[in-house]
């Protein structure tokens, strides 16, 4: 039963190992093999490991977020994100854009009764804005607003997602944190082990002489005469495992301190005042330049005369 063994796995066709020069050709063939309505409107990210990128900067909206469409026929509609697709695409609920297509009978799904069905169309991340509810301090009411851009800063552990996430803030006003939608709780399945059983510690090293593994089991673990078993580390491994020499030199310390200070400096956005000030300066410069040009022109005309 070849499917049990993973030995020949590396000889299989794998899109991730395809050279870049062959990618366009493969993509074309891939698209040709799909019916029109099933084709993704976005460029395929076939060389990525997952269809959903892991970085939160790339994945601005999570499943369950309320978003507003700002472009296209469904402009202004508020929808919920239901799924991610490749290339920063989002599938929305029934308020989102759809396409009506004819499906051949071979591709009919369960409970389908007609050839014509409506398919949700994916919307690009740039054409969406996040909807958030913000308490207005002046009036004391909650306002529903669309956030123009988001910024991801800091780190915290989210108990529901079971992941370290970044705080999602409004760009330009970092004190406004928009919480992520709560994911649906994952229930224990048939093969799950209770948390307390998993976390219980049963292994303790008590003896330096007695091995915790019975001798009869050792041969089934690893081949003791394996050619891959190395006794010496390579130069690179040794370098990685050796901590840097301490203390740091004075120059290095000064350099690091300077970098830290530079990081602390606030980053200013250009205000209208600044813009007018800069504009005035440019006008003044232009006037001076113009004068200089006039004088130069006069001189040249005199010479010519």
């Amino acid at each position, binding site marked *: 039963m070849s*499917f*049990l063994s993973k030995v020949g796995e590396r000889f299989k066709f794998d899109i991730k190992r395809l050279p870049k020069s062959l990618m366009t050709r493969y993509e074309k063939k891939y698209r040709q093999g799909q019916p029109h309505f099933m084709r993704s409107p976005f460029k395929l990210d076939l060389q990525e490991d997952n269809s959903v990128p892991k970085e939160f900067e790339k994945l601005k909206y999570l499943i369950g977020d309320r978003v507003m469409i700002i472009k296209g026929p469904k402009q202004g509609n508020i929808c919920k994100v239901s799924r991610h697709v490749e290339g920063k695409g989002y599938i929305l609920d029934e308020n989102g854009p759809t396409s009506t297509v004819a499906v051949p009978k071979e591709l009919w799904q369960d409970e389908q009764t007609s050839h014509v069905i409506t398919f949700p169309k994916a919307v690009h991340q740039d054409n969406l804005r996040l909807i958030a509810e913000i308490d207005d301090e002046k009036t004391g009411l909650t306002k529903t607003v669309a956030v123009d851009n988001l910024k991801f800063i800091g780190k915290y552990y989210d108990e529901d997602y079971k992941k370290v996430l970044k705080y999602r803030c409004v760009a330009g006003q970092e004190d406004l944190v928009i919480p992520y939608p709560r994911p649906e709780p994952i229930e224990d399945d048939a093969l799950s082990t209770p948390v307390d059983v998993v976390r219980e510690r049963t*292994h303790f090293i008590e003896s330096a*002489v007695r091995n915790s593994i019975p001798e009869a089991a050792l041969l089934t673990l690893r081949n003791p005469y394996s050619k891959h078993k190395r006794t010496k580390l390579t130069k690179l491994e040794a370098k990685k495992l050796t901590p840097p020499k301490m203390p740091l030199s004075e120059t290095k310390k000064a350099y690091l301190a300077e970098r830290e200070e530079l990081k602390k400096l606030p980053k200013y956005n250009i205000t209208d005042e600044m813009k007018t000030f800069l504009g005035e300066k440019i006008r003044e410069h232009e006037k001076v330049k113009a004068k200089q040009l006039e004088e130069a022109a006069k001189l040249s005309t005199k010479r010519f005369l």
Partner: protein
Amino acid sequence: MFQNSKRLLHTSRVCLARKQAPKKKAKFVPRDKTSKSTAEVPLRITPPITPTVKNFEVSDDHPLWQFFHEQSYLRQFDELDKNSRSWTIPELRRKNFNDLHSLWYTCLKERNILAREQHLLNVDSERAAQPYGDLAEKVRETMWRIRHVLSERHHAHERSQELLPEQKEQILNEFKENFLTATKDEEVELQQTLSRLQYAIFGISEIIADNIVDKHFVEGLKFIANLKLERYAKDHPDFQELTPITDAGEAFVLFHSEPTTKSITESIESVKNLRSNNIRVDKLYEIESVTEFVNKLVDESQ
């Protein structure tokens, strides 16, 4: 006549020529009849046996049931585990050998079930068998991680064998100093520390039957015998004469005695008896002799 004869050269044919008269065959004697033929018995018409699964009786504890999930032929896609993930390496590092061993076999059984189901569906379409394969892959991941954790432990143990001789003397000296200077109030705690040390450095377990006698064990016996002698019988008149204990037999007597002055004094008497009778354990046969002593103790306790 020529049809039956073999085709051979006239020279080689001579070699095959029969020289002895053939043995006479025994006369054929027909056997007594044990059963009657169908022709002799009047024919009876019975209802035909229909070939159904119900005609087979399989006991619930048949070993092949281990290849089935709750005795069902094929699980539906919805019945499969979808939310679980593989065990991570840090999680497995917390578990002892027995736990990992049983987890390994739980995984193996589950993979057998999944492989059977996958094989059934693979005949129809590979796509239908895919979820079963994906789940089996998760289980397989746990299995290689178990092997990884165990080999990690084994490598650490091998490394500790290299480092132990360097640090052993220092550890033992430190312990000896604490052991000899401890007050009587700390006695209970002291014995607990000693039992931990003897298992850690020499592999001597408190449970006698669990012990394996080797060079570490014998070395430990001698160390602990000297230690006990120095703590509980320093004022004994024969202390100078007895120390250091180098004989494995004498060491065993002292090691086995209770950690009290009275018990140690009794042991000293038996050690002196051994010396006066010139009973010593040969250095070459220390391990064998101590194994005998330990086995005797185990038999006595049983």
